[in-house]
């Protein structure tokens, strides 16, 4: 306890006054430092850890191919290899989506203690989770997808265009991350429900089955899944010899932008109530 204020005996070295980071600079500093913290604790300084994230889609691709590869290969030009590549591209998309959104879901609540002590822009928490996973995707999965595109399309243009569905994926993922993290503040049983949402998105994305086996009347419902246009565009770019389909690219980007806009709107509408519940 500080007993009494007495004049200072001997001048202590004085910390220099500094400029306080403002607005955007502070926001970006926060996102960078939070996402690098996430990556550091996840990989303990080893960049190889990033490639560990590929093990899940690779393993799943192996299993699906072993079980369904032969049965479905007639839909893939009688080539099991094409089935393998189509399944991997789909799984890569779904994997990054479900990992990121599941990690973002508790991000606001987990930092509730901090939010009660320091004034922070709340949206940095889900965003920094998205940023750290985007980095992981960019150095881990994306190069593999580009290799597949080089092999599958034999065209440099197609390899470069892989970036568009990747960007759309990032936007959709960010949108869902905002919504999930905001709703979790109010509904602490959300993780169970979210498992169900993820399952629906996984089974309605034609990842391990060809879309042709789905009855025509049911197909329109599948396209409500925002990951479907992304997977379609990615497969068209990476696995066909045709030039990238601009309509598919445009459709996937539009889906991404709309999802992100909804996510941001929900987050900001609910944000006012956060502090009473954290």
């Amino acid at each position, binding site marked *: 306890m500080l007993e009494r204020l007495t004049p200072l005996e001997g001048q202590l070295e*004085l910390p220099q006054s500094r400029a306080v980071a403002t607005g955007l600079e502070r926001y970006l500093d926060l996102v960078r430092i939070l996402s690098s913290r996430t990556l550091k604790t996840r990989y303990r300084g080893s960049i190889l850890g990033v490639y560990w994230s590929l093990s899940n889609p690779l393993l799943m691709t192996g299993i699906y191919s072993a079980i369904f590869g032969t049965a479905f290969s007639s839909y893939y030009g009688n080539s099991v290899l094409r089935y393998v590549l189509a399944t991997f591209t789909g799984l890569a998309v779904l994997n990054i989506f479900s990992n990121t959104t599941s990690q973002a879901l508790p991000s606001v609540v987990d930092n509730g203690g901090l939010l009660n002590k*320091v*004034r922070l822009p709340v949206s940095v928490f889900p965003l920094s989770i998205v940023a750290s996973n985007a980095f992981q995707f960019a150095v881990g999965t994306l190069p593999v997808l580009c290799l597949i595109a080089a092999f599958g399309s034999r065209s440099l243009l197609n390899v470069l265009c892989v970036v568009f569905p990747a960007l759309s994926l990032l936007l959709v993922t960010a949108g869902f991350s905002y919504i999930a993290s905001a709703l979790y503040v109010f509904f602490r049983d959300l993780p169970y429900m979210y498992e169900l949402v993820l399952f629906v998105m996984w089974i309605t994305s034609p990842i391990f089955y060809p879309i042709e086996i789905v009855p025509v009347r049911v197909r329109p419902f599948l396209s409500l899944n925002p990951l479907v246009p992304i997977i379609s565009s990615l497969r068209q770019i990476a696995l066909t010899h045709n030039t990238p389909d601009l309509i598919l690219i445009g459709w996937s980007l539009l889906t991404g932008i709309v999802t992100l806009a909804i996510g941001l709107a929900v987050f900001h509408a609910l944000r006012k109530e956060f502090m009473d519940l954290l």
Partner: protein
Amino acid sequence: MNAVELRGVTLQRRTQEELTYDLKRLIFHSLTNRYRKPKRRTVLNDVTLNIAKGEKIGIIGPNGSGKSTLLKVICGILTPSAGRVTVDGRIAPLIELGAGFDPNMSVIDNIVFYGVLLGFPEGDMRERVPSILRFAELEDHSREPLKALSSGMLARLGFGIATDVHPDILLLDEVLSVGDQSFRAKSNARMQQLWTEHSTIILVSHELEFIQNACTRALWMQDGRVALLGSAAEVTASYRNSAGVPPLLPV
């Protein structure tokens, strides 16, 4: 221009009973028509307060009277339901030591992380690392993960970073003093330095004696309202009277 101006600030918050709300119950309660809108409680009620630049003001009052909530409104963590808060100058809370530390990161990373949370550019914080380590006497431990430090070392580090901040308005929730005897002298000196140097200080404390001696004015909060605002001696004296604490003997 005052450093802080509060005009009729009122804050309503959802009551604690709503905190365990979950989706399952919301759906069942809506189906069975048992859903009620969450209740709200008035935590701050029409608080008007002007704090001039350079003033040291102490906030006293019983537990749950809204003292810490008032600090949170001033630094912008909570937004008032009605009324206006105007702050002129850079504001920083001297937050609870260790909030925001990550036990798995190194000491250096934690210093930078903590500083960025408090609002300083990352580059500046990297430059500040050596002097903070020196102040906390932790130069030999800079690369170790935080969990390897003793609790005393942690407190020293938290204090070293938190008091390294130089805002125009400093918010204190209880006066801090940490560490062993030798460090305590050092931390007291740093606190006194903050006191003499910072133009405006807002302090929440139950240490009436300290407030009486160190603050120019005091604010007594009671049930979310301003009960009394005046000179530190006057307010602490009447608070002691009402709380049944004998008055401080003149020194």
